[in-house]
Every structure is written in structure tokens, then in C-alpha cells.
């Protein structure tokens, strides 16, 4: 940030133009898992997966959709739906202020982004969570955008995909947030009635109210490797049962072993895998390689 920008009042100080791609902090990045020192550009070119140990770093909702969808013919759904503060919620900070700060920092208006588009020419509606937006928490906007996404899928006779990354329901919207669990689950009954597939992709982390609603209702449930997935957080469980949790507890591999998910798929293969699954359910010819 230049000295001039620092002097400007925050309203004017908004970065202009297409600045969605954040400037990398440095040229190098250390893998949190294997500690290998990597070129940022290598990591970015590898879907934020460590080329040495395949550790999956968390990624933004838009990068996620970029990885999954064809470049052409994308249309964002429900961006006009934006959060308010029905409870006048206040902890150490007012919810409205928290929202404003997060919105300008993230340049997103809430934690779910929904897009109509295609995967290898198969028409889809795909939703992805922005974990950095208040922990990907689900409030009224997430529920409404999800429901509109499902409706768009029904209207276009397209499959629906949701990539979850969320700590659960958003406390700041109180019971309205809890009701989004019921709302999103109910929306999926209509998709089902229309005979359209729903694939739920679970990424690190998928917890609480998101996990206990649409995330676990996929016709097919896919997880990325090593993602933390569960109802209660590990700390809450540890405090309740007063014992140390087994290794790998609530990780994707644990869920696969216990029969909770269908498969674990590497992020770099996710697009291909989704195309295979969706074309099978839609009984369309295999897409050209």
C-alpha cells in the first residue's frame, strides 16, 4: 500500500478494477504439512495442492468454481441476495460492522457463491463456500442462494453441486440460521422429485449445521483428502467425553471407512470425476476427451 492510499479515507480507498486475485505475499510458500518450500506460482498452478505431499490448502470459492467450471457461459445466481442484521446482534462488535468489514476485505457479500455453468459441456449449477467469509458460516443469505441455485438447476434440468467449507450455522443470525438447515434440505426434496442429481463435495472443514443438513444429503458425497468433517468440533467432543480423540478422527479417510461418504477425490481430479459421475446419472453420452 502506498503512502497516498494510506492517507485516503476508507470509502475512496477501495482497490479499483479487477483486483479479485490477491497479490501473493511472497514468492515462496512453505507447505504446512511436509514443510517443503514451494514456488507460489507452482502451488497456484497446482490447484493449491502441495506438489510434494498432496496437502490440500484451503481455496477461495471463486478459485474453486474456476477449477470446476468451463470458462465459457457462466452466470452467477443470487448475488443480489445480501445479508441484514435481523437480531441487532452485538458481541464485542456489532454484526453489521463485522459484516461490513468482512465484505470490504473479502470483496464478497456473503459466504456462498452460486454459479450456473458447465463442466466439460455438461450443464450444471454449482455452489461453493467462501470459508474466509466468517468461517463460511450459514445465515439467511446462504440458505436463500442455495435454494435459488437448486431452483435454477430444476428450471434448467441440470445437476446441482455444492462444495462445502463451513464451520456451521452463523450465530449472529440466531434461529434464522438454524432454519436454513431445514430450508436447504427441503429445497433438495424438489431437486430429487425432478430426477436431478445432487453431488455434495466436502472440503476442509465441513462442520455443524452445514454438515448436518445439505452436505450429508448428496446422492453422491465426495470429500477431498484429509478434510475435517463432522457434526461437533473436536474440542467440544474432547471436553465432553474427556478422552483424547483417535488419530485421523473426523477426517475424510475416517468417514470413508465408516461408510459416511462415497469417495475421496484429489482436487486436481475433481472436475473429471464430477463430469464422469454427472454424465452417468444424466445418461448423456460421454464427453469428448
Amino acid at each position, binding site marked *: 500500500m502506498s503512502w497516498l492510499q494510506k492517507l485516503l479515507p476508507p470509502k475512496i480507498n477501495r482497490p479499483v478494477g479487477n483486483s479479485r486475485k490477491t497479490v501473493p505475499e511472497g514468492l515462496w510458500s512453505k507447505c504446512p504439512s511436509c514443510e517443503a518450500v514451494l514456488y507460489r506460482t507452482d502451488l497456484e498452478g497446482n490447484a493449491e495442492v502441495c506438489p510434494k505431499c498432496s496437502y490440500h490448502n484451503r481455496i477461495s470459492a471463486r478459485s474453486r468454481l474456476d477449477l470446476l467450471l468451463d470458462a465459457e457461459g457462466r452466470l452467477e445466481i443470487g448475488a443480489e441476495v*445480501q445479508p441484514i442484521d435481523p437480531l441487532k446482534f452485538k458481541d464485542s462488535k456489532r454484526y453489521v460492522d463485522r459484516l461490513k468489514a468482512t465484505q470490504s476485505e473479502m470483496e464478497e457479500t456473503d459466504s456462498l457463491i452460486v454459479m450456473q455453468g458447465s463442466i466439460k459441456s455438461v450443464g450444471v449449477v454449482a455452489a461453493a463456500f467462501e470459508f474466509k467469509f466468517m468461517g463460511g458460516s450459514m445465515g439467511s443469505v446462504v440458505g436463500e442462494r442455495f435454494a435459488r441455485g437448486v431452483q435454477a438447476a430444476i428450471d434448467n434440468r441440470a445437476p446441482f453441486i455444492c462444495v462445502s467449507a463451513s464451520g456451521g450455522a452463523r450465530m449472529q443470525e440466531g434461529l434464522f440460521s438454524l432454519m436454513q438447515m431445514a430450508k436447504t434440505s427441503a429445497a433438495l*426434496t424438489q431437486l430429487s422429485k425432478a430426477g436431478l442429481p445432487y453431488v455434495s463435495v466436502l472440503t476442509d472443514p465441513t462442520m*455443524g449445521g452445514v454438515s448436518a443438513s445439505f452436505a450429508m444429503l448428496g446422492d453422491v458425497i465426495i470429500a477431498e483428502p484429509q478434510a475435517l468433517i463432522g457434526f461437533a468440533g473436536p474440542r467440544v467432543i474432547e471436553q465432553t467425553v474427556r478422552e483424547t480423540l483417535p488419530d485421523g478422527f473426523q477426517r475424510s479417510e475416517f468417514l470413508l471407512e465408516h461408510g459416511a461418504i462415497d469417495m475421496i477425490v484429489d482436487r486436481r481430479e475433481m472436475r473429471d470425476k464430477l463430469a464422469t459421475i454427472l454424465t452417468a446419472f444424466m445418461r448423456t453420452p460421454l464427453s469428448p476427451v
Partner: protein
Amino acid sequence: MNVKTNNVKTSFLEFEQPIAELEAKIEELRYVQDDSALDISEEIERLQQKNKTLTKDIYAKLTAWQISQVARHPQRPYTLDYIRGIFTDFEELHGDRAFSDDPAIVGGIARFDGQSVMVIGHQKGRDVKERQYRNFGMPRPEGYRKALRLYRLAEKFGMPIITLIDTPGAYPGIGAEERGQSEAIARNLYVMAELRVPIIGVIIGEGGSGGALALGVVDHLMMLQYSTYSVISPEGCASILWKSADKASEAAETLGITATRLKAFGLVDRIVPEPMGGAHRAPEDMMQSLRRALADELSHLQVKSIDNLLATRYDRLMSYGKFKESPVK
């Protein structure tokens, strides 16, 4: 002072201490009157009147945090008390047919005013042993799967469903996670949204988050006057947002967990009034007033065709949420 010395053995909450003291005094006088020639009945009468006013005053301005304590009162009537008090011919049905029977949820067939119904609710325990047995009303996946089995059974035989909600939340345990706590709750939300029978839900005590909602996707939702319904417990919210569980009372206030606030938001359809001082002070009266409310709402729902009922339920589910619509830049 030992508040449990009076003859009804009511236990009092902290904010009820003035009531407890007055009741103890009345009790003392009664005792004196029994073996003395002096007539102090007038004085007793006066104190009783005072006690009534005092209770009324205290209960007229309960904070959200105080209400959540009444909702968790150890003497509050639980699901099985309501089943005994309101229904007849109850036959409890056990088990999820896959893993085990979860005592934190009870359910079965029963008669309400002679009509066949399915009644399902969370069950807490009264003494130490039973509390443990009922796991403090915190269900495991098999509890929700038992409920699911009973929903389906009710649907098959066209029986209206009445759910009684009273749980701190779904159990956060190792086994619960291994057996798919999330999926069990999610499945109930999904199935309840399209179940082809009328469903009435009553929050009788604590409506604790997803663990409560798995019994709460209904056509008509009632709350007893001093029950609560929340996305997270006030303590949990305080320890996350204020980093201190001591701020529970502030959290309770701002979370909006009381029947009056939730009714104003349109998230609850009806508040069932409780006897003075809470349901536990006069359980019989509570039963009567809930019975009337249930009879009332059941008759409203049953005149609707199933298709109409389901369409209304779906529209209602889709209407949940408060947001604005602004043009996108």
C-alpha cells in the same frame, strides 16, 4: 438456607430466592398455627397474597437468561410426563433397527382425544441415574434414526405426528460421529419436509440447535411460554464470541431465544401460556393448556388436504430467512 424444606419440595432458581424465602416463612407459620391456639390464618393469607404478587412481578420481567434457566428447571415436566398427562394408550416403540435403542428419544403410538397419533420426544432424566441413562436428553444418531422410523410408520398409517422438543443438543461424542450424527439429523430434516401427514411440534423446554430441529420440521410450531429455542446454547455462544462462558446472559439476550421474540420473528406459531412460576409449579394446569392448544391446531391441520398441507409446509420452509435484495455492481 435450604430451599427444599417446604412441603411441595420445589427447588428454586437463583432469581427466585425472594419467592423461596417467602414460601419458607409461610410454611413456618403454618407449622406454628397447627399447634398453637392463636389464629394466624389471616397473616398466612396475607403472605400468600404477597407471594402471588411477588411471583407475578418476578415472572413478568424475566430476562432471556432467566427464562433459559426455567426451561432447564430440574422439576420441569418432561416428554413422558406430557405423554402420561395428555395422551392415552401409549405404546412405546423402541430401536432404530440397525444399531440400538436411544433412551434420549422416546416415541410410540398413542391416542389423543381418542384419535391415533404418533408422539415422539426428547427425554431427560429426573435423578442422577436416569439422567445418565437418558444422556441428559442428548440423542445419538440411533435416536434420530428411531424417530425417522416412527415418522415413516406414522406416514404409512396416516397418523398425525406430535413431537415434544427438549434437548441441550445432539450428543457430541466419538461414537455419535462414527455412526454419522450429521447424516442422521440431515436425513430427518429432508424426510420431515415431505412427510405426508400433519406434524405439530412443541418446544417444552430446551430447543437446542440441530439436535432439536431434527424433531422440529413441522406444520405448526408451538413453544411453551418459558421454553427456549436457539442455534447455539448461550454458554456456547458466549465462549466463542466473548471468549468467556460468564457472558451467557448477554448472549441469551442478543441471540433472541425466547418464545416472545421468536413469535415476533414469525419462526414460532403459538405460545402456550405456563402456570404462574413455570410449568413445574402446576403441571396439571400445564397439561390442560397444552392439550387444548394441541386439539385446536390438530383440527385446523386435519381439514387440509395432504397436498395443500405439503405445499404450505414447503412455502413456509422456503420463507425462512431475513435478507435484502440489492442490485449487483
